[in-house]
């Protein structure tokens, strides 16, 4: 008899538990940002590409520029207001020694991009120019700005959608970059110099 009523309680409590679970699930959905998609590239090597330099159309870069040390790959364009908002902070990061590669994404014109870098400052070690956005598709870029963290082996560690600011750097990107740097600095010295050359 006692066994039976216990079973009855479990059955009666089930809808309540289901309701509580559903409430928590939906409440979490309410505060999550649906536009933040995790990159399909995380843990994978960066895709192969060949892109011209922003300043010099003759000069070609390949995916080799994203290998050899931890770095950020920042996707930007002059038509993107948020990129302008984050630019000052990228300059500051570059001054602090953070290695950043820029990927100009479907900009209106090369001249506009060059003008932007000349007037607002150039935080990028390498400037890639993706006129038609085809390489950006290979990276799974769906807007600007986006920032990828690439480790010393040229693998994507993390993708941040939206602007990089002090809060994002302090809580999200910075710690991951530091971890990648620590891994890079802890490897044997000769591998480090060989990697940086490539």
């Amino acid at each position: 008899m006692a066994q039976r009523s216990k079973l009855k309680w479990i059955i009666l409590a089930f809808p309540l538990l289901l309701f509580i679970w559903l409430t928590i699930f939906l409440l979490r959905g309410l505060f999550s940002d649906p536009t933040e998609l995790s990159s399909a590239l995380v843990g994978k090597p960066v895709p192969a590409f060949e892109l011209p330099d922003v300043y010099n159309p003759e000069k070609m870069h390949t995916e080799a520029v994203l290998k050899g040390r931890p770095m950020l790959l920042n996707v930007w364009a002059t038509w993107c207001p948020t990129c302008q908002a984050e630019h000052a902070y990228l300059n500051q990061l570059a001054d602090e020694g953070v290695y950043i590669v820029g990927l100009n994404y479907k900009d209106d014109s090369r001249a506009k991009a060059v003008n932007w870098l000349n007037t607002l400052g150039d935080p990028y070690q390498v400037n890639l120019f993706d006129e038609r956005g085809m390489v950006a598709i290979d990276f799974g870029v769906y807007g600007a700005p986006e920032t990828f963290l690439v480790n010393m082996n040229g693998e994507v560690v993390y993708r941040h959608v939206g602007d990089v600011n002090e809060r994002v750097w302090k809580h999200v990107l910075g710690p991951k970059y530091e971890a990648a740097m620590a891994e890079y600095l802890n490897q044997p010295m000769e591998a480090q110099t060989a990697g940086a050359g490539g």
Partner: protein
Amino acid sequence: MTRLLTTMWLVALLCLSTAHAANLQTYSFDDPSKEALFRELINEIRCPKCQNQTIADSDADLAKDLRDRTYLMVQEGATKQEVVDYMVARYGDFAYYRPPVQTSTLVLWLGPLVVVLAGAGVILWRVRSRGNTDIGLSTDEQAQLAKLRGTSSPTVDTNADKDKGDPS
């Protein structure tokens, strides 16, 4: 009069807003089966930028780029799976409107089945427990039943029922 004019303008605007579907006419095919595949694909690939639209519906720049890429791949003879794999490799499972069967999406695929089975289970349980009522009598109740069956006539029985129903 001005009201009529405004209405007419609004109707005209509405007609204009469907014009973007005509953009798809710019993709020309020699092979009707390729065209069918292209149309099927652009209606099943989700635009990562404007999230609840397919790349056929969306006017976003990125959706156009992805349509162009789909067109190129289909023209070059890619199969449906190849195009879907291409998109998923870059934009994740999100890019395809049909989620794959894997542990994280199992609840999507099996959820409805579980609900139906649970419903059937509850109905079965209730029907069976209703059939079992006279087995669940305690010895006291059985004695009472025997007494009622043995001694009382149907008229007494109805009287007893009436007494029970009466609160006084």
